[in-house]
């Protein structure tokens, strides 16, 4: 066989080349390879050497572009990348069916847990522990998928237990601000734990953290789509049931939503995992659309803030809005970075991103000056400190990103420096969220 090694290499290269035509599937390539080999064997039998026979056989196969066009007109559907959740091949199929079973079981488990929680916990407790109830199921799916080691599971269990104990045992005042803050920040800290599960415990790797950021974005898109589809189904059902003179609202509230929402989260995670290499990622596409629009929005805000002559009602509402705007800008930045070829030269879009960052920082600076004077007047509350703290973190993050982006545009730093800064800063938010959950309530007297 050694004499044919070169031929094998050539056939491999040919396969790889044919595979680049999207209209030609792997099975078609197999079929054509069989043909090619038969042709080569026949030609060799007539006295040609491997090299000549291969060249003649490839030539007789014809122009691959033309063949690919024929395949495309026969299988036009193939030009749309196909999502194969359960492949035909026996081995893969068994694994996929098992995965589907695991996903559905976990989705049902998450739903049932929320349903039971609604039944036995009072509303306050439920609000702040809902993340604790649902996210372990998502974590369990990822742990199963990544086959996490006991050590990683242990690492995940400890912070989870601490958060659970804090949320369950702290003597929160009813409807107090620290309770609301804890309820809002706990999912962020828990999400970081999901991230550790997602990257299979290798959370120190920048590339893996970026993958998790991508996963989060795609998950959000999928959840939104599932929610829209679900809303249509529920709406249609409710309409018909209503006509029949029955009231479906209690069923929706008590049964459908508690099962559907947590279930959708697990199913969406499964979809993101399954379609990873099938469909182009959508979050970066949305980023491209919304970056210029957000820039316009920020410029309008800047004009409004500076011409209004001082903010009349500069309360914590403004601060929270500012945080939301900065989070939006951060998201746009993160997903632009995640989808960019790090080796590509600086382009127009990078300039646009820098303008976006500049505008966001300017808007925040104006709002922050107004807020600081108010805080100096009325003192600190848990809410203000939480909002201000987040604002400071976002500012540091965005200023750092702006500096690195500028350096990249001027050819001083590689793009990689910016993407590493992005992913390295992410854990800071989780730590901050944990601080708000664990430290804030006792400091502010559980008010």
């Amino acid at each position: 066989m050694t004499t044919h090694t070169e031929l094998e290499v050539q056939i491999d290269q040919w396969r790889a080349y044919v595979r680049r035509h999207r209209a030609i599937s792997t099975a078609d390539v197999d079929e054509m390879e069989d043909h090619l080999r038969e042709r080569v064997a026949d030609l060799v039998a007539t006295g040609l050497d491997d090299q000549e026979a291969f060249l003649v056989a490839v030539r007789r196969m014809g122009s691959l572009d033309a063949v690919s066009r024929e395949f495309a007109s026969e299988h036009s559907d193939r030009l749309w990348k196909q999502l194969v959740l359960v492949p035909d091949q026996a081995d893969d199929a068994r694994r996929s069916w098992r995965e589907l079973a695991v996903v559905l079981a976990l989705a049902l488990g998450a739903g049932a847990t929320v349903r039971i929680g609604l039944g036995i916990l009072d509303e306050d407790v439920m609000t702040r522990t809902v993340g604790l109830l649902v996210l372990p199921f998502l974590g369990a799916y990822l742990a199963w998928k990544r086959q996490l080691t006991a050590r990683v599971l242990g690492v995940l269990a400890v912070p989870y237990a601490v958060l659970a104990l804090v949320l369950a045992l702290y003597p929160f005042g009813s409807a107090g601000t620290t309770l609301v803050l804890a309820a809002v920040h706990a999912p962020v800290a828990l999400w970081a734990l999901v991230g550790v599960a997602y990257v299979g415990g290798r959370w120190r790797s920048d590339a893996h953290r970026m993958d998790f950021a991508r996963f989060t974005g795609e998950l959000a898109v999928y959840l939104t789509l599932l929610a829209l589809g679900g809303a249509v189904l529920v709406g249609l059902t409710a309409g018909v049931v209503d006509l029949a003179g029955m009231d479906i609202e209690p069923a929706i509230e008590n049964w459908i939503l508690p099962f559907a929402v947590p279930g959708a989260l697990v199913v969406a995670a499964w979809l993101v995992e399954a379609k990873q290499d099938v469909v182009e990622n959508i979050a970066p596409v949305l980023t491209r659309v919304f970056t210029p629009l957000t820039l316009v929005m920020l410029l309008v805000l800047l004009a409004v803030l500076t011409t209004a002559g001082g903010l009349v009602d500069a309360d914590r509402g403004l601060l929270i809005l500012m945080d939301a705007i900065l989070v939006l800008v951060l998201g746009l930045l993160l997903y632009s970075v995640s989808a960019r070829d790090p080796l590509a030269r600086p382009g127009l879009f990078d300039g646009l991103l820098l303008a976006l960052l500049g505008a966001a920082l300017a808007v925040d600076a104006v709002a922050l000056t107004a807020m600081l004077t108010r805080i100096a007047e009325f003192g600190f509350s848990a809410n203000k400190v939480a909002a201000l703290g987040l604002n400071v973190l976002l500012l540091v993050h965005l200023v750092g990103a702006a500096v690195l982006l500028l350096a990249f545009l001027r050819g001083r730093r590689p793009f990689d420096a910016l993407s590493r800064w992005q992913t390295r800063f992410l854990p800071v938010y989780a730590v901050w969220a944990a601080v708000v959950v664990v430290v804030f309530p006792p400091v502010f007297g559980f008010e």
Partner: protein
Amino acid sequence: MHIEKDLVAAAATPLVLGILAEGESYGYAILKRVTDMSGGRLQWTDGMLYPLLHRLERLGYVSSAWGSSDTGRRRKHYAITPTGREVLVERQAQWAVVAAALQQVWHSVQTPPAVAEGWA
């Protein structure tokens, strides 16, 4: 002799169906059979056979199954279906009409060779 592309394309379906009517076969063998039957004068681009076979399969004229060659390679075998046989009979009738009509045309245009040379 070069045969026009459209003519080759028109003949492709009945040829493939006819060859499969003799018995189950696979791509390369079908092409070899075509070459043999036409004395090497009817030449296809090899790659084009496969989209054609897939089209015939979609139309339900042939069915396919993955098997393996003598050397154990994956190989897709095609067999004609009852629908395919019906289509083949139909095509045969159509081609008979065309061939008969052409035969008469050839007969009537049989011009003296001297004139033909004069044109050239």
